[in-house]
């Protein structure tokens, strides 16, 4: 069976072949774009964030290899429903683990996904400076 012979595990293949949350968000509250074509990957993540600081929706667009696409897809899944604070804690390792592992040479894709999420959140915070304090405050308490 062709399915047995793939460079990635079934979860990665599934997220590559059936990406979740692909696209852009109209009126996104935060957009992050990281990477460069010359390096082989560009990831753009758009977030919709409700007033209570919850990520109500997430979308991605990616120029890059199979694991870059799968990492973006998984990253959007991971942050959906999370608060900003929780989302800021999502690491590339979380993405890799959720994907059931990536080949060593492809770990950088998950790093890029983490960075794209962070960039989108930064963008949101930049647009909503009042929330920055909230985040910082909550961080303090913890």
């Amino acid at each position, binding site marked *: 069976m*062709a399915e047995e012979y*793939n*460079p990635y595990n079934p979860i990665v293949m599934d997220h*590559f*072949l059936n*990406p979740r949350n*692909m696209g*852009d968000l109209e009126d996104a509250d935060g957009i992050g*774009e990281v990477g460069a*074509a*010359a390096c*082989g*990957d*560009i*990831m*753009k993540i758009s977030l919709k964030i409700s007033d209570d600081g919850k990520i109500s929706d997430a979308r991605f*667009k*990616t*120029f*890059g*290899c*199979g694991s*870059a*696409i799968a990492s973006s897809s998984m990253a959007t899944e991971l942050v959906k429903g999370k608060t900003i604070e929780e989302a800021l804690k999502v690491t590339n390792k979380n993405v890799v683990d959720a994907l059931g592992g990536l080949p060593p*040479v492809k770990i950088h894709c998950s790093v890029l996904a983490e960075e794209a999420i962070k960039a989108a959140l930064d963008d949101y915070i930049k647009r909503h400076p009042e929330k920055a304090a909230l985040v910082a405050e909550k961080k303090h308490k913890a």
Partner: protein
Amino acid sequence: MIKVYLDHQSSTPVLPQVYEAMLPWFSEYYGNASALHEQGLRAKAALNQSRKQFSEAIHSPDPESILFTSCGTEANNLAVKGTAYALQHKGKHIILSTAEHPSVENSVAFLERQGFTATRVSVDSQGFINPEDIRAAITPETILIATHYANHDIGTIQPVAQIGEIAREHKIQFFVDAAFSAGWLPINVQEMNASLLSLSPHRFYGPKGVGVLYKNRKARLSSIIHGGIQENNFRSGTENIPAIVGGGLAMQIAENERETRVSRLRVLQEKLWKGLSEQISYICLNGPLPGENRHPANLNVSTEFIEGEGQLLLCNAAGIAVASGSSCVSKNLKSSLTLTAIGLDITLAQGNIIFTLGKDNTFEQIDYVVSSFAKIVERLRQMSPMWDAFQKGNISSVIPGNPK
């Protein structure tokens, strides 16, 4: 499920007749060709029969000029390093092009770390070497000119006979890497004035596990794998008899059927490029237009705004086997050496796809590939932030002349 194999540059299936010819050499005739008994002498006779088949196919003056190695890469290493070690007392300068296969480029780089020097002659935007650039690079220290016949990435056919003429005039050893050419292009080592020429049978329906180096009787060569006295002392190690037997027959058949195979390939190649360029926007052809200056099996394209690996994986999911010179795919920045050498924009190099046709591909397969590939490109562009930016006019196409 439909399966279309379009990666014949990376390997080909062994022909049924070749396979049949190999079979007795595993369990029935298993002698070591160095042994002095029936089993051994039979193996030796088989070796020599294969030498004859290769010799005839490339118009070698004698079968003894055929040396067996384990693969095309080793044959290239032997040609380059073997010349360097044999002639280092005469000089230490090597000339090659910027678009050689990694087995040539990295052999030369290894020698540079050992004190040899090299001049890498640039190729033009279609991958052609200018023989006059080779001439200009010659110094009194030059001991080797190493070039390829057809480029493995973009199919450019080099003016090897002209380069050979320059080598002859200057009495410099001339090595031709024909690992992607043999079986597809006519080879006459005497007309090319080749001192050394390498072949790789698994690229023309022969088995893996054997490479061939033609060595003109006058060429000077040192061994690089040391040990016993196999291959006239030029390559030690027990010979892979089944692969050598199969390789020789595959060479003979390839040569007999070459013109038939090639004229069919040329039609498929034209059809494929026509289909792709009509169905897909912002796609460019790398290397010369299909025709006498391009390898009949190779079609190398770049689809703008998307990356290669995703295309490969979606092709695979559609049953289509292709390759890519993108560094992301090969995990080796050097694999896109040729694309860098022709000055291809880095984003186009990222989106590189190599189709290599074979003798069994059909017109229907080409139609399927064109329509599938168009959908794949469309799908990946939908995912691509670069496509988005291009649509919005934020970036522009880097394809020269902006085709379609």
